[in-house]
């Protein structure tokens, strides 16, 4: 057979070993990867939190004020603080990885990865500024 279809016979010492559940502990970059994967849980929590806010606003002014009071409780504050760290970590790693995922060519030459990452960060700043302007007016 040709080199394109390697033999499927296993050598005696190459039987696949099961991967341990905590393979990602004990190596800094594997651990960082798992933290990043874990950030998805906090993204989901934010959706829940946002929908609680939306539903409070629909119910009326008293419900909205109750939401603002509830959001100042220690447990919710702590959860949101941890969530913010994970969400920012997710955003930074996502934008920094964008050049690996997106190839843009202008006039036949490839746009450098740093420009793609920079445009994502610029977009992040603009979006954040617009949200701040809408909600706070500064």
């Amino acid at each position, binding site marked *: 057979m040709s080199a394109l279809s390697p033999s499927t016979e296993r050598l005696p010492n190459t039987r696949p070993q*099961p*991967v*341990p*559940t905590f*393979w*990602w502990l004990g190596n800094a970059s594997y651990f960082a990867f*798992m933290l990043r*994967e*874990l950030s*998805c*849980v906090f*993204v*989901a929590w*934010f*959706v829940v*939190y*946002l*929908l609680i*806010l*939306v*539903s409070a*606003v*629909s119910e009326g*002014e008293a419900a*909205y*004020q109750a939401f*603002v009071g509830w*959001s*100042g409780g220690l447990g*919710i*504050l702590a959860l*949101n*603080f941890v*969530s*913010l760290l994970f*969400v*920012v970590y*997710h*955003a930074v790693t*996502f*934008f920094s990885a964008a050049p690996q*995922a997106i190839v843009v060519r202008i006039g036949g030459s490839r746009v450098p990865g740093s420009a793609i990452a920079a445009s*994502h960060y610029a*977009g*992040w700043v603009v*979006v*954040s500024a617009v*949200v*701040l302007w*809408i*909600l*706070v007016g500064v």
Partner: protein
Amino acid sequence: MVFSAGGVVSAMLIPVLLLLFGIAFPLGWVAPPTYAHIGAVLGNPLTRLVLLALCVLSLFHWAHRFRHTVKDGLQIKALDGLVALVSYGGAVVGSVVAAYLLWQVP
């Protein structure tokens, strides 16, 4: 496609919204919007469309990543069918709830 769109939209919008509604408003760093203000912002159909896209894309982003974290990260492959059902099913249900709640804002 949905996964990376969810990644971009959630990365762009969630940090600032969580910083404001989760930290800055409750701690009084910035005065929270008045009820009339937040009602007007949410009353705008464009806001609700953006928030619906944010919720739906973020939920599917979560579902995809959660399923693969359990399967490949924690190596729990035996339950993959169930985990996938709960993840993507949860994202579908969450999207319907989000659409309903955003629809009924006065």
